[in-house]
């Protein structure tokens, strides 16, 4: 099956690069198989290249992330999925000699460029990290941090409300409502990660990026976070990097498979796991390598 037929079959057929027509199912990774684009894209990435000094970490990746959609990014270690994720809110800016090329937009507005201010961008595109990283402050202060720096709440009562709402949405309120003044670092790993999610929600972002949010957690805490991701999808667009294929299958609508800095295949999650189009994807999900 070639990519065009897939596109025709898919409901969200987008304009496909011409060269993809000629491509058959094989081990070639220079073009993406499947449907990387969608109609109601929240974020559009076109021909993204990322370099660390002389080394190229990302090769010519194009991908859309749709509104209220969870996109999972999977692939073997070092395949560039985290690097790509960090491009989406310009976290790579903090790394010296990291260079990002290509066209990246949020709601059609470019996110890279001289004129773009990175601060509001990051308020709109929040991030949750691999290791829970609560600030060494109280639980309340952790959640209130974002609204405070962005001046979202004018009065204390408003701030209290934001904190409570965020903690509720992150499913943490009942566990911590009596000890909001205790240090966030005193919570368990799973609670810390939910605190970090609450902290990200508190600035009401439009997109949430999650970089292996469950890799440091036990299965029960992981299940809670996954449940949470399913609930959050109603209000937010989510991109999640994960090493667990089961997790990708459970939480995402579309799954992107990365391999050595290239985007090999993107498709509806079900299709990727039941009927992968690309040989490398198949090899990875059946556990032949990775």
């Amino acid at each position, binding site marked *: 099956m070639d990519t065009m037929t897939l596109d025709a079959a898919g409901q969200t057929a987008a304009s496909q690069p011409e060269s993809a027509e000629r491509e058959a199912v094989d081990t070639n990774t220079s073009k993406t198989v499947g449907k990387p684009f969608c109609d109601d894209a929240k974020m559009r990435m076109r021909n993204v290249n990322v370099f660390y000094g002389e080394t190229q970490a990302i090769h010519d990746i194009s991908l859309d992330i749709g509104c209220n959609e969870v996109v999972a990014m999977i692939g073997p270690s070092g395949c560039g999925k985290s690097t790509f994720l960090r491009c989406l809110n310009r976290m790579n800016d*903090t790394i*010296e000699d990291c260079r990002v090329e290509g066209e990246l937009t949020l709601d059609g507005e470019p996110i890279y460029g001289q004129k773009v201010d990175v601060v509001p961008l*990051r308020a709109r595109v*929040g991030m949750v*990290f691999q290791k829970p990283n609560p600030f*060494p402050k109280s639980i309340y202060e952790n959640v209130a941090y*974002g609204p405070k*720096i962005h001046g979202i709440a004018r009065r204390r009562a408003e701030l209290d409300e934001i904190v409570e709402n965020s903690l509720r949405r992150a499913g943490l309120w009942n566990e911590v409502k009596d000890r909001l003044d205790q*240090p966030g670092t005193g919570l368990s790993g799973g609670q810390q990660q939910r605190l970090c999610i609450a902290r*990200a929600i508190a600035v009401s972002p439009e997109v949430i990026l999650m970089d292996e949010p469950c890799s440091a957690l036990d299965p029960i805490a992981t299940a809670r976070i996954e449940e949470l991701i399913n609930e959050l999808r109603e209000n937010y667009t989510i991109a999640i990097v994960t090493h667990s294929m089961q997790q990708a299958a459970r939480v995402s609508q579309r799954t992107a498979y990365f391999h050595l800095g290239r985007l090999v295949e993107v498709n509806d999650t079900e299709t990727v796991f039941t009927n992968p189009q690309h040989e490398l994807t198949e090899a990875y999900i059946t556990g032949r390598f990775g």
Partner: protein
Amino acid sequence: MQTSTLFALLLLLILVAYGAGISRALTVAHKRGGLRKLAALPGYYGSYTALWCGLPALLLLGTWLIFDDAIIRALVMDRIADKPDTIAGQNLLYAQIQNLASGRLIGDAAPQLQEAALQLNRLRTGSRNLQAALSLILAVGLGAFALLRFSPELRAREKVEQVLRWVLLTCACAAIFTTVGILLSVLFESLRFFQTVSLTEFLFGLHWSPQMALRADQVGSSGAFGAVPLITGTLMVSVIAMFVAVPVGLMSAIYLAEYASKRVRALAKPVLEILAGVPTVVYGFFAALTVAPFVRDLAASLGLQASSESALAAGLVMGVMIIPFVSSLSDDVINAVPQSLRDGALGLGSTRSETVRKVVIPAALPGIVGGVLLAVSRAIGETMIVVMAAGLTANLTANPLESVTTVTVQIVTLLVGDQEFDSPKTLAAFALGLMLFISTLMLNFVALHVVKKYREQYD
């Protein structure tokens, strides 16, 4: 035999023993069929033999050298009939005998002394010969003993490492005992001081004038030992220094850790650390010759009276001296804040300065406070700059433009030159030293405690 020759000979013997141990081990191993048949590597058998050969002999030599003079002196003095009563007189007499013995005293001396000198020379030669013979016999004997005891089953490595552990322990103890010794000597001299001057006068007296009269009717004969002016002077200079060092040091640390590119950092950090390498004497004359006159002129142009040696000048220069201390400690602490916290703050849309102010610095604060307290204890103990730039008069004042004196300066002036060591004047130095020691000890203690406590809470 000269001690140095003996020493060289012993070293040579140790080397020989080491070689003999190795070759013995190798021969046996060869006969048995391979190094695996030995309980340890040949090198350890070498060290084992060398330790048996060298350690007891060197210990003997060391003990001998420490006690031999005292014993000889006791023997010589024992034979002299009419000794002087005082220790000073006895010292003088013995020095005379020593000079006579080495032929430096020309002229006639009492026959009794002549005889004592001869005896001294005899004892010295005998002692040296005995010492050489004993240590050589010990070295050769024990070395041979170790070689004879050699067997492939001997666990030489464990034995050698045991000895090494003891050597290391001894070195650690030496440092600790030195500290305890210094503390005790300061303590006992201070106690002697407090027998003449009461503790309350020392701690709460407002007047400092450490003079002791030689005659009762001397002008200004009444000494005063109130340390309050010294303490306030020290505090004033230290506070001024911290006002310079903390903001500048902290901000330069923040710049280096958070903002500077790798290139700037690689250049700026060593340059900043050169500042720490400038000898305090150099800072001292910089303070006295450049900064103090500048402060005085500046004050004059503002219509203020400033003395040519002022607390302000000394404090400013001391602050500059402490900058690298504060900045490199803070830099370490700031760098130790995990990158994940910065990422977390940036990911929420903080600007760089918000990240630094609201996340990095609060997380690093305990370490920074600890570093600042350590810097304070350095400022209090600093001597050279204040000696040159702060002045010597003990003023009880709050005006930084006046000259003040500090605890360290007074210790220096009390002990410079020839002093008799039993007058309250010199003993006062020990009391001041004890006070300084206790206060810096407490500061360090608090600093370490603060660092530890908050670190536990946050990690």
